[in-house]
């Protein structure tokens, strides 16, 4: 535990149980859960905005005209698989199998990067077909929502790579696998949001 719980943990009573808290959940993990719960509201507001605006415009091209479901299905599948590799990374760190843990962290980050590449391709393709950020309310809402999700994935990749570096420096071992778990919580959440976005925004056709 960090400075965070130093007052509570730096005693001989619970020196052997650094996570002794009232709820039994460590401060770091509880904070991540609370933070992710606030993120639900953030994405909730963005998704609602898109749903209200998805057909708004003055006859310009709409995002729904351009969706390439097979392509986005593949990149969604890639992101989903990264949740699997995240779990494998955590499991490896839990067994103190650092080599595998590091490898799975790297694979997770790379799958995330592939997804981001897909998003960059999609944005470029849409732009070339005439859907700019300022084209109409539907376009603004679409790019803002998916862009925010992409920013979250990117931050997740930075966190994964930071973990990878820390593991290489020997600062991240099986003893503090909870850190991997906490970053994993974030990663799974970002995946989950994408499942929601993919279903509600891409798969449900406009009326």
């Amino acid at each position, binding site marked *: *535990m*960090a*400075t*965070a*719980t*130093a*007052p*509570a*943990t*730096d*005693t001989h*009573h619970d020196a052997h149980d*650094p996570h002794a*808290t*009232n*709820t039994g959940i*460590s*401060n*770091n993990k*509880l*904070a*991540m859960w*609370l*933070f992710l*719960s*606030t*993120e639900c*509201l*953030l994405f909730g*507001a*963005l998704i609602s*905005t898109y749903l209200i*605006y998805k057909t*708004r*415009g*003055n006859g310009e091209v709409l995002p729904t005209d351009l969706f390439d479901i097979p392509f986005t299905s593949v990149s969604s599948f890639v992101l989903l698989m990264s949740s699997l590799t995240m779990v494998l990374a955590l499991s490896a760190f839990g067994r103190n199998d650092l080599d595998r843990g590091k490898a799975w962290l790297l694979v997770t980050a790379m799958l995330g990067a592939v997804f981001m590449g897909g998003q960059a391709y999609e944005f470029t393709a849409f732009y070339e077909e005439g859907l700019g950020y*300022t*084209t*109409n*309310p539907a*376009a*603004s*809402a679409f790019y*803002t929502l998916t862009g925010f999700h992409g*920013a*979250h994935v990117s*931050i997740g990749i*930075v*966190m994964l790579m*930071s*973990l990878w570096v*820390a593991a290489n420096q020997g*600062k*991240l071992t099986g003893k*503090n696998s*909870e*850190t991997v778990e*906490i*970053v994993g919580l*974030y990663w799974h959440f970002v995946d989950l949001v994408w499942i929601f976005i993919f279903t509600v925004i891409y798969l449900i056709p406009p009326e």
Partner: protein
Amino acid sequence: MAIIEEPLALTSGEQHAERPLGVLTRPQANGSWKDWVSTVDHKKIGIMYGVAAMFFFLVGGLEALLIRTQLAFPENGFLSADVYNQIFTMHGVTMIFLFVMPFAAAFANYLIPLQIGARDVAFPRLNALSFWVWLSGAIFLNTSWIVGGGGADCGWFCYSPNSGITFSPTNGVDFYAIGLLITGIASLVSAVNLAVTCLNMRAPGMSLFRMPVLTWMLLVTQFLLAFALPVITVALLLLLFDRQFDSQFFDPEAGADPLLWQHLFWIFGHPEVYIIILPSFGIISEVIPTFSRKPIFGYSFMVFSGIAIGFMGWGVWAHHMFVSGIGPISVFAFSMATMFIAVPTGVKILNWLATMWGGKLNFSTAMLFAVGTVTMFTIGGLSGVTHSLAPADTQQTDTYYIVAHFHYVIFGGGVLGLFAGVYFWWPKIFGHFLDERRGKIHFWTMLIGFNLTFGPMHVLGLQGMSRRIDTYSSGFGFEFWNLVATIGSYVLGASVLFFLWNVYKSKKEAPNLPAPGPDPWDARSLEWSIPSPTPEHNFDEIPVIESQDDWWFRKYNIEDDGSVVRISSAEDAAQKGDAVGVHLPSPSFWPLVLAIGLPLIGYGVIFNLWLCVVGGLLTGGAIYAWVLEPVDDPDADGHGHDDHHDGDDPDGELATVGAAGDDTEGEG
């Protein structure tokens, strides 16, 4: 948790050899100003919140006096319409985001750890971060007067399309949006931190339903903040993107719907009302029992009604929008919800009255402010329920009746309660009393000034005087009551200055007066079981809690026949504050550095994107420096000098900072 058995080295006041970690060495406490800018002590952070909030109270108060001076006479030319718009906008924004919220945060920071028996909050460095980010956002917001071409001029609610670049061409609204985004990051970090503190850091035996009502109300407030702020974050970002990057969220010509802003804003804005009022409710729930010599009446009703307000606060936002054409079903549903939310509030008011009923009342200044809160809030609450009747509300919308109502709620219910807390906890925080005689003069002038200012606005509103209009014509019967309101506002301003004089004078007189001792009011909660002012380590020993009002039961016993017998003096029962070797978290500069980066990003978005790069590097660098700096000064904990990479410390913090990093990059 943490009962100290063996002395460990005390971090405060000790000098240590410099460790070869260069920039990542933790700063050491040495009694200079650096202590304050690098502190992670929840008490110092609380005091800084209080001082900074008080400064912005004066700023917002000055803006209020300018408004009232302009409105003193019909067709007055003291302020131009344009300046008037900026002044009333910045008055609202300043008072809500830069005074009431941080002033409540001052109490939350200082008191939550003390009331639950903890040595600090869950994340001391994040706590420092919250304060510095809030302050940097507050300063950023006000620099729009200098570099932004004036303040925002769209009202604190900033309805679109008024807030668009067409109708508000200066940079004021950009400063509004970014400034509130930055202060929002601060509040969100603080909300997560304090909620984790309440849930995880309680002393042994301090179950949730033994927590003082204040801590409960603050916990509910943190949840409201945590869920309301992301919504305003989205709204502000959409507004900013519209203004800076030409997106089309609020342009009706492009097919956008201006109502979107209203919904997003009020989904945040109504819970915000309870974010403002619940801390005050909590404070007077501590003050009234103490000065009535009775336990709080209906503790569980008090707690559950607070939780109920927290839930129902999410279902009433559209009563701000009855004239927006939201349709009869919505109007009906939100009318009903608005009537219902008066029920838990009414429960609270009746419980305070029942607490006082039959008590031995002692009308100290704190008690006067608390009773003032109950009465003034009741008036504001009653005028609030009238808004639930949509036909009546249609008449009242955008009139001074609304202005009267929300000032009775926010000032009468919120600010008076916060002042009750100031007088109540002052001896605990600073080790001397605020003078009671001057305090009572402060109370009465404030109460009279407040009622003179806002009482007449009920009449003006019902007569049809519109709010947000820079002047009014003579001959409509508005002259008299406007003049009364203006005179009242000057009385109110004088009362605030008198309070500051009381602060100064009481401090000066303090050395000649007896010290307050640990428990000057014979109070009930844990913070009174330790010396005044609070020692740096809070508790010598973490107390083991056996009941509600545990501290009171260490002083008194209830006999079989129901009579109350004193079993110990407060001095004997209280901790002595002389423990040595309590391990405390080491200070850090990185929260401040991180906070300086954010307004740079803000200026960059408005003026030159290269500044964003500088700000981003500063913020990003601070995050990594924060992660990598040793968890403690390597010499501070007295054992394990060379093993500061041992254990899971650095990486445990990594995840925490990762979460904060998301805020800054994902939402800010």
